[in-house]
């Protein structure tokens, strides 16, 4: 009986770990798409996601939209916003000095965060989960509907994106522009627009991540800050240029952190507290960068000196 209970407990943590990991995977995927195509690490990805989530909240609460139409509208708005940000802010500094790009994304981070506070205030808001608060009992394992919904949405988005990249002309052009922009131009691909499209897709992914995060932790301007860190850890772990790595990294991280939480009730792991989740992710970033910077699925960068 004890073993069954322990197993049930374990499975619960795995499922909720997958749900959390799904969110990390989405944001990590956004980071990877942007890095692969434009070589930029977008420190503002979290804030962009927060802004998108506020837009969704605004539509549902202040304008009375129902959830799913607001969801889709937010995705569209975020996509356009991402394209816009690339064309206006990023493109002029893309090719230059690394420092310039870092400062520009930091400027975006600070500015967007400020905008959110300025427009909607700093108090936490509530965004209802579209999946309700039910729980299901599957063979003794208690699974929250919200977790299942999150996993389903994350999975759906990832699969759709994969299909876009693999089977469509635009997806092919995106991939070509990312790996070999000069040659892509020669076959007629408008590379600059493809890069902007990449930013649009990343913004869209961030929006989904934000909307999946808000119901659980509450919507406030700094909601995505820890998620961004987890996303960085997932992306670095999986390989900053590998979309597969981002997804795998996110899921692994989500489950790992939940595992540590679960095990913290047992002697050997009782040092692990909730506060250590973030530092653990940071430690992963450091260790991976120092030991194997290209991550699990990445290819080593040749530095010939």
């Amino acid at each position: 009986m004890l073993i069954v209970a322990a197993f049930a407990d374990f499975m619960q943590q795995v499922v909720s770990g997958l749900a959390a990991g799904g969110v990390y995977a989405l944001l990590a995927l956004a980071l990877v798409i942007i890095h692969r195509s434009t070589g930029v690490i977008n420190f503002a990805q979290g804030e962009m996601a927060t802004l998108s989530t506020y837009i969704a909240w605004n539509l549902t609460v202040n304008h009375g939209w129902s959830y799913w139409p607001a969801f889709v509208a937010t995705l569209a708005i975020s996509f356009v916003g991402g394209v816009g940000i690339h064309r206006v802010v990023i493109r002029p500094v893309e090719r230059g000095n690394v420092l310039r790009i870092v400062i520009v994304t930091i400027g975006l981070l600070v500015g967007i965060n400020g905008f959110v506070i300025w427009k909607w205030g700093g108090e936490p808001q509530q965004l209802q989960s579209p999946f309700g608060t039910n729980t299901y009992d599957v063979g003794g394992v208690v699974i929250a509907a919200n977790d299942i919904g999150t996993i389903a949405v994350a999975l759906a988005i990832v699969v759709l994106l994969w299909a876009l990249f693999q089977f469509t002309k635009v997806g092919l052009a995106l991939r070509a522009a990312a790996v070999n922009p000069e040659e892509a131009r020669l076959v007629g691909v408008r590379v600059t627009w493809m890069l902007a499209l990449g930013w649009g897709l990343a913004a869209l992914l961030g929006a989904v991540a934000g909307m999946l995060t808000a119901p659980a932790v509450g919507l406030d301007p700094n909601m995505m800050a820890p998620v961004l860190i987890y996303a960085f850890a997932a992306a670095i772990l999986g390989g900053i240029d590998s979309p597969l790595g981002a997804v795998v990294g996110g899921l692994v991280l989500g489950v790992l952190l939940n595992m540590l939480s679960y095990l913290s009730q047992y002697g050997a792991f009782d040092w692990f507290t909730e506060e250590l989740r973030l530092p653990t992710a940071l430690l992963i970033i450091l260790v991976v960068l120092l030991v194997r910077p290209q991550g699990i699925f990445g290819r080593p960068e040749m530095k010939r000196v």
Partner: protein
Amino acid sequence: MSPRPQRTIGFVAFAAFVAVVAVLPSFMSDFKAREYSYVGIYLIALLGLNILTGYTGQISLGHGAFMAIGGYTTAILMVGNEQFGGPISGGVKDLWTLPIAGLVAGLFGLAFGLPALRLSGLYLALATFAVAVAMPSTVKRFEQFSGGGSGIQLFGTPELTGSSANVHVLGRSLTPNDWMYYLAWSIALVLFAVAWLVLRGRTGRAFRAVRDSETAAVSSGVSLARYKTLAFGISAAYAGVAGGLFAIASAFVNPDTFPIALSIYLLVGIVVGGLGGLSGLVFGAIFIAFLPLWAQGQDLGSLLPDRIVQETQKPGGPAIAYGVVLILLMFVLPNGVGGLFRRIGQLVFGRRRYSRPD
């Protein structure tokens, strides 16, 4: 224009600057002097970061962490951590803690610099970012050393600092704020001179070689490992001293005294100010210390229509302005304000024979 007269101009300008710094407190309120002492503190940190980023091209989003190390070292040495169960009894006078703060931070810098050799550009930025974000929680964790969440108070140690009563120096009596100002700025100017000397010599040339082309540097026999690590150590030491001063000026340290925002502001200060010259770094330090206040329309109030001032003073408004300013600056002045000063200087005084770090 040949180097010799140019250097004379440089010395004269520097002397004038020192003079201005020396007399400034007489012209401003006591409170303003305290604000300007923070400018001096940030300048020290920027001097260090400049060596790392401007001279060896390594980007750090984590120098706030080194300031934290320095700040906590100072606090622990002054007050001791026996109250938390730690081993140190404290009682060290504030001034003497500063070299130690620098040394300890510098050692951590060397320790980080060595593995950091494998990272470049954005990866290094990310790694240092991770360190800076992790610092507050790590500090909290080692409660016995650091006092955990509530930190360490430096009030009530008047025999160790000048911060609660007037200080008597050279026959004059200084208010605590003025004392802080002079302390911070004299250390800043001394450290500037030290940096200048170091960078003029072989070390500086090696640093620049590393920044300009690692391949070329190696083939000329410059050891990348040694100089890149050294740059990390020196810059961390500077940040440590700045952190120690920060602790003295604020009279307490806790995990939130040195948040990730500080590390970000330091990098922003360096880039906005412009890598390289002193004038740019001073501007960068002023930028870090004052822009958040300016953005709140305190000084712009009279220039802009009321409605705009009202809107920008709502919470979040200043941050929007800050973000926009940053982005615009990167478009318009990619070499920072220091770069602008340099260009003006070139127009007025003619081009230099040798190239400056840009």
